[in-house]
């Protein structure tokens, strides 16, 4: 098991390296004249050259990448070209906001999708039909459109929630809950509808397996069959669905934060993209990849725990 985890971790680090290198090359070879961009049209060629030297842009690409990598490994992700704030600092203040929302939404999705999906698989009838229709509706409306509609109706028209966040450094947990309820709902609706549908089919598939009939013939109760055997066998499929949803959500949350003006990763990423603030963009990409790798590692470990075949080999 430890070897299995170490192997997974190792391949995660390789992925991190490859993605960082590719992103770096992509960003720094294609983005035209960066220095002129920063200084504006009035700058003289001398000023531009000076700025390029200051940013290290006169060095060869490979040198610059390894310099960046060396810094990154020691925790220094360099600074924004526009605000000069160290990228690591910006990330540190924004990640908690974003991660709180993402994890709150993921936990709620896991719980709701499992409950609804299992209910639909076992009870069939109207619950099942609601889940089927819900999945279609959920697939049809992008999460951020739901966010926009929620703000319009619940915040602006009815005033139940704030339309823009009241989170700022030092506010208490009530403000977080108050500000995050709507965004979290906007984040989780697609996840719950889609997830419930997939967990439903996974459970139905397991319920039709031969060993379920044999367990019934041995006098094991339906409840025990469902919760001990069927859910366990359906869990790997569910975990895969959840991890894919989480990857999608890391993107979706950017728009949601923009809609609700939350001080998370979203606004940082959007501003940096619009300004071509490359060190910040690099930082955002790295944070995302790290989160994904950690989550995938957790999923692998859980799957290994659930499936004895993986555990043995």
């Amino acid at each position, binding site marked *: 098991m430890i070897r299995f985890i170490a192997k997974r971790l190792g391949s995660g680090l390789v*992925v991190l390296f490859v*993605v960082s290198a590719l*992103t770096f090359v992509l*960003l720094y070879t294609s*983005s*035209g004249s960066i220095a002129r961009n920063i200084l504006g049209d009035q700058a003289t060629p001398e000023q531009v050259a000076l700025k390029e030297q200051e940013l290290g842009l006169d060095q060869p690409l490979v040198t610059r990448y390894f310099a960046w990598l060396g810094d990154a490994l020691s925790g220094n992700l360099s600074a924004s070209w526009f605000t000069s704030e160290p990228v690591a600092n910006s990330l540190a203040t924004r990640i908690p906001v974003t991660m709180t929302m993402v994890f709150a939404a993921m936990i709620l999705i896991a719980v709701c999708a499992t409950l609804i999906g299992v209910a639909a698989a076992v009870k*069939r*009838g109207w619950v099942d039909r609601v889940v089927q229709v819900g999945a*279609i*509706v959920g*697939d*049809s*409306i*992008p999460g951020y*459109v739901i966010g*926009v*509609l929620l*703000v319009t109706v619940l915040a*602006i028209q009815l005033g139940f929630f704030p339309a823009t966040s009241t989170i700022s450094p030092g506010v208490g947990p009530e403000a977080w809950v108050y500000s995050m309820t709507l965004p979290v709902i906007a984040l989780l609706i697609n996840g719950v509808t889609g997830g419930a549908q997939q967990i439903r089919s996974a459970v139905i598939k397991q319920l039709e397996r*031969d*060993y379920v*009939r*044999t*367990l*019934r*013939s*041995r*006098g*094991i*109760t339906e409840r*025990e069959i469902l919760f001990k*055997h069927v859910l366990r*066998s359906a869990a790997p499929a569910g975990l895969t669905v959840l991890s894919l949803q989480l*990857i*999608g959500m*890391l*993107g*979706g949350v*950017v*728009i949601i934060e*923009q809609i609700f003006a939350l001080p998370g990763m979203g606004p940082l990423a*959007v501003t*940096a*993209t*619009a300004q*071509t*603030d490359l060190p910040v*963009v690099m930082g*955002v*990409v790295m944070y*995302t*990849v790290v989160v*994904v*790798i950690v989550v*995938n590692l957790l999923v692998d470990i859980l799957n290994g725990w*659930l*499936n*004895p*075949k993986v555990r*043995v080999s």
Partner: protein
Amino acid sequence: MSDSVETAAVAAPMPVGQSGTVVRSTVIRRLLKNPLGIASLVILGSIAVLAVLAPVLAPFGENFANITKTLAAPDSVNILGTDSAGRDTWSRLLFGAQLTLLSALLCAGVAIAIGLPAGLIAGYYGGKFEGVSNWVVSILMSLPGLIVLLTIRAAFGPSVWISMIAFGVLISPSYFRLTRTAVQSVRNELYVDAARVSGLSDLSIIARHIFSVVRAPIIIQTAAIAGVAIAIQSGLEFLGLGDPTRATWGVMLSEGFKNVYLTPTLLLWPALAMALTIGGLVLLGNAIRDALEDGEKIRHRRQRTPVAGTSAERTTAERAKARQARKTVAAVDIGTEHHLVKVTHLGVGYPQADGSVKKVVDDVSFHVDRGEILGIVGESGSGKSQTAFSILGLLPDNARIVAGSIQFDGNYTVAPGEDRVNQDRLSRLRGKRISYIPQEPMSNLDPAFTIGYQLVTPMVRVLGITKAEARKRALKLLADVGIANPERTFQAYPHEVSGGMAQRVLIAGAISCEPDLVIADEPTTALDVTVQADVLDLLRELQQRLNIGVILVTHNFGVVADLCDRVVVMQNGRLVEEGTVREILRSPKEKYTQTLLGSMLEGKTPMTMLVSPPEGPVSHESGSTAPAGQDAAAEKEPVA
């Protein structure tokens, strides 16, 4: 090189296209019969027409701004009003549709162009290419789409086309995986082997046998991916990172959101357009999937929702009687209490979509006494397994008892007039007094639990003994069924033991709670003949030692001769003949039994015809009469 030339030469003389069109046209017909299919086609078709005709239909240019008329309410000139810059909402919506559909097409096109060939190659040839592409795919799939598009935007600036090409690359793994899995599932199908033996080139095999398998899933996937592309593209534009000179639904939504306090309706139109388009795609995908499913399967699914079937024929009075019967179970007929099991005029049926009931067991009566082995013999579709499962109460959910009764040890488990097996009464008996030995040893053990766990738990639940006691008993049972090292097998997972060993474990499980009746459904069919002989010895020895009644379902007269005291022969759901094992095997009265025994090879002169006179074409082998539950399972469409 030569491959492609030969493909052409091969393809030309064969009526390949013909069959393709036949298959496709039935799918399209089914699609058009489905109201959701038609609705989605109408929605998407109208949006496409509006998009194509946008330059003609739109009263204004996409960026034409009338700054004297901003945020106007709908009127005769601007039928949906104007935005904050005085641009016509209707016109922008039309141009937005154009851009949206084109970008979705581009994205899906790029993704297919990369994912499909890569998936075909990886699936068909495997090897290094598959290893490398799997690795690339795992990286691409771990990158959130929007973050990648932000990076692309930072690198290349705002362009719908570049971002959609990038997203197409990013999402191509979904086609890759779909294709690879589909190809792998058919690569080793015997019909592909047969094509190889015929000398078909790889290209021809892929084109003829493999591409047809991925075609439909790819269409379904494309509907889904186009929807995702529209969502993400408009999201990017909503963030203000799109091309500012183009009218798009994302930009319009963002514009509406900025003016949400003044004119919230500006939000409504682009949101509606998006939901309709994506919803249309999702519905289309679902409808195609439904259309592809076998007619059999569709019926099967419908059966799950309660169908009036049997009850429609019944009067309310009868139903009330049945309800009454459920509360107070009638006493069995006097003089029959001593039978361990007595099945009387049993009928089992499956309600069909058209309201009729397909009977799979019809008017079957027999009994089993203590210490007796009854064989139920028949070919596939004879209803022998369905009969056995109705005694166990483990019929599929949609099955109905349409006639007759079943009694166990002097009490009804299915009383006359009941249309379902009474689970309350049976769950008290199952595992404790009635147990079951399945056919396929491996699939009947839960792969996630040790063999020990799966033996111990039923004993703890049913007998109420402690885990330690149960463990001791389980080890003894494993030794009893002839397992050399019980301790090791106890701790093993099912995938760590052989099929014969697994069947012994299942037999141990079946006798663990000292039942009175064991129902064995083809218990040796999946085993090698030498293992079968050992298992038959084991069953005989256990049955005699524990004096249990056994119902043995089998198609093998050798197994019948080895174990059974009495035999019933079934055909097409009906009981053909009943008698002692010697009567049935030596002097069968019914023609069907005679035919079956006549088909046995044992004792026949080699190299002579078995069926004489040579039969006319096929009439005897007409399709099986098994219901959805039995043979149909083996006949599932692989495309689904």
